[in-house]
């Protein structure tokens, strides 16, 4: 095992000023911040028909929290499994794949059938396909060995481009009226989140979380790398599959809710590693989720109240995330 594939746990020991606070303290501080943001979001500038405004805002907040949770957990777990700190499900083209699958289904059976099929069935079908893809990807990553992370990254990004290309090609082939329905399915931004979709998403996330909770003790072991994990008695293959399934489910939820945000996960996970003095999932995971919630709530609040316009949040995240990504490359933290 070469030094650069050493688990994040070893490298994370380098202390930065941020790490002088314990992870528990950080979780506390961040939780308070999230709570404050939620309260602000719900109450700021409150006027008009409360019976209308409040549920609308609550929907938005719920969507943001769900997305923060899904993206935070899926990114950290994906990075643990793949043993790196720069690949994320989004960068590897998972969101684009989700949209491609939706488009493909709409193309083959029509949006009408897609809608009547029921969210549950559709969701299961999509998740199964996505897990299949992630499994193939994973096999390719690890079988044969010696693959450079850069190659994996580039292939992931190009896969994303390819998926988006095929999606837009199929979308052009679909009837224009069907296309409108489809577009609504994809880009439900925070402003018009369907409340029924919220319910399904929350349930799905709950199911994924329970599955994750049952194998939580194996996460830290997985972070030590494949060989060590196997030596310590973890059935690597099975556990990794389970984690990838969970990741796929979470990515599907967040993409269904707000559409693709490529760099959000990278951003949140990178900061979480910086804050956490000990790399243990019981700390890193909640910190990542809380940071995600702060970024979404705070960002949306700033955009809505200060700049007076909506939905551009994903663009801002894309901008900052892209810079972080290049910075990580320049720092040479990817080798």
């Amino acid at each position, binding site marked *: 095992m070469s030094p650069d594939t050493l688990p994040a746990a070893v490298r994370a020991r380098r202390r930065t000023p941020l790490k002088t606070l314990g992870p528990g303290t950080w979780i506390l501080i961040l939780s308070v911040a999230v709570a404050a943001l939620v309260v602000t979001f719900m109450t700021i500038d409150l006027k008009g028909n409360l019976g209308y405004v409040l549920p609308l805002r609550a929907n938005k907040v719920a969507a943001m929290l769900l997305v923060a949770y899904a993206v935070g957990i899926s990114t950290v777990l994906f990075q643990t499994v793949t043993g790196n700190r720069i690949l994320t499900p989004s960068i590897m083209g998972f969101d684009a794949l989700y949209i491609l699958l939706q488009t493909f289904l709409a193309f083959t059976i029509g949006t009408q059938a897609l809608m009547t099929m029921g969210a549950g069935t559709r969701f299961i079908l999509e998740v199964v396909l996505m897990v299949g893809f992630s499994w193939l990807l994973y096999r390719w990553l690890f079988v044969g060995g010696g693959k450079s992370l850069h190659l994996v*990254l580039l292939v992931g*990004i190009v*896969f994303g*481009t390819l998926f988006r290309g095929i999606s837009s090609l199929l979308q052009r082939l679909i009837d224009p009226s069907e296309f409108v329905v489809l577009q609504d399915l994809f880009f439900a931004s925070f402003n018009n989140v369907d409340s029924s979709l919220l319910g399904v998403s929350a349930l799905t996330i709950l199911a994924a979380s329970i599955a994750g909770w049952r194998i939580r003790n194996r996460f830290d072991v997985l972070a030590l790398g494949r060989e060590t994990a196997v030596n310590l008695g973890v059935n690597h293959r099975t556990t990794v599959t389970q984690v990838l399934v969970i990741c796929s489910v979470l990515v599907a939820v967040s993409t269904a809710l707000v559409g693709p945000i490529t760099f959000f996960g990278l951003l949140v996970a990178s900061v979480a590693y910086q804050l956490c003095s000990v790399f243990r999932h019981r700390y890193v995971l909640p910190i990542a989720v809380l940071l995600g919630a702060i970024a979404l709530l705070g960002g949306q609040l700033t955009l809505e109240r200060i700049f007076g316009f909506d939905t551009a949040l994903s663009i801002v995240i894309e901008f900052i995330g892209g810079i972080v990504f290049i910075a990580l490359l*320049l720092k040479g933290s990817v080798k």
Partner: protein
Amino acid sequence: MITELSPTDTQPTTPRRRVLLLPALAVLAVVVLSITSLFIGVSDVSISTLLSDSSDGTAGRILLISRIPRTLAILLTGIALGVAGLLMQLMARNKFVEPSTVGTVESAMLGILVVTILVPAAPLLAKMGVAAVFGVAGTALFLLILQRVPLRNTLVVPLVGIMLGGIVGAVTTFFAYRFDLLQSLNSWMVGDFSGVLAGRYEFLWLVGALAVVGYIAADRFTVAGMGKDFTTNLGLNYRGVMALGLVLVSLISAVVVVTVGAVPFLGLVVPNLVSMLIGDNVRRSVPWVALLGAGLVLVCDILGRLIRYPYEIPVGTVLSVVGAATFLYLLLRSRRNVA
């Protein structure tokens, strides 16, 4: 190894005949495709309608106003983008870069957007100029960042470029959103020849001319790609050559984006295919790049027009699928070769 010193003697006659045969076939293919392209469309334009006396000359006018300009625009775009990609690859000494993977195209779009917001009434030429300046700046920024990447391996270069393009693209979308210009932005993002008419594409002749300049100067870019010291030792002005290359690539991208929109991956796929076919002699490969570029855009445009006839699928969409798939193939293949 004496034979290597006199390659002309050792070359058997058959390959040399093939050297003549292949270009002839390629030219023929492009000509056939161009003629096909002229006769595809909703309104009835065929040899018989053109010749028959009964028609009132509508077919002829359509041919002159719409079909011929469109086909010419396709040819010029294909030639120029292929050459621009080749130049970019020589300058960055990397096979995986081209104007749309290093941020040149995105920067040019940002430029157009800035002009559109600040001076909405600016003439097309001014828009192109500003777009080109932004393109130069974006590409220069890319080369600058590249110098700072600690390990400059083959794969980091396109990665940095794609990310830079993403960042610039995010800025562009941000302002487009603010100023309600997302729709016009979309028309630049996806290359589409359906709007090409006589009077609206003529600037593309400029990129054709730039491609010729690129051909004449091609050798210099090879040398410049070897590095500053090497270039200076050979008596070439390194900065001058790099500047010329930057301006050529950026101008080509800017003009194409303004007139037809972004045509992704073309500059990446075509030079790589040519290099696989005939090797890396730049002088020899430029004509091939031009031919293959023109041919590929023609094929993709014809496909886009036929798949969902009578509707059209933009060539940019078709090429993003074809191009991304080829890019993946090249990536995975290169790994096997290196390993």
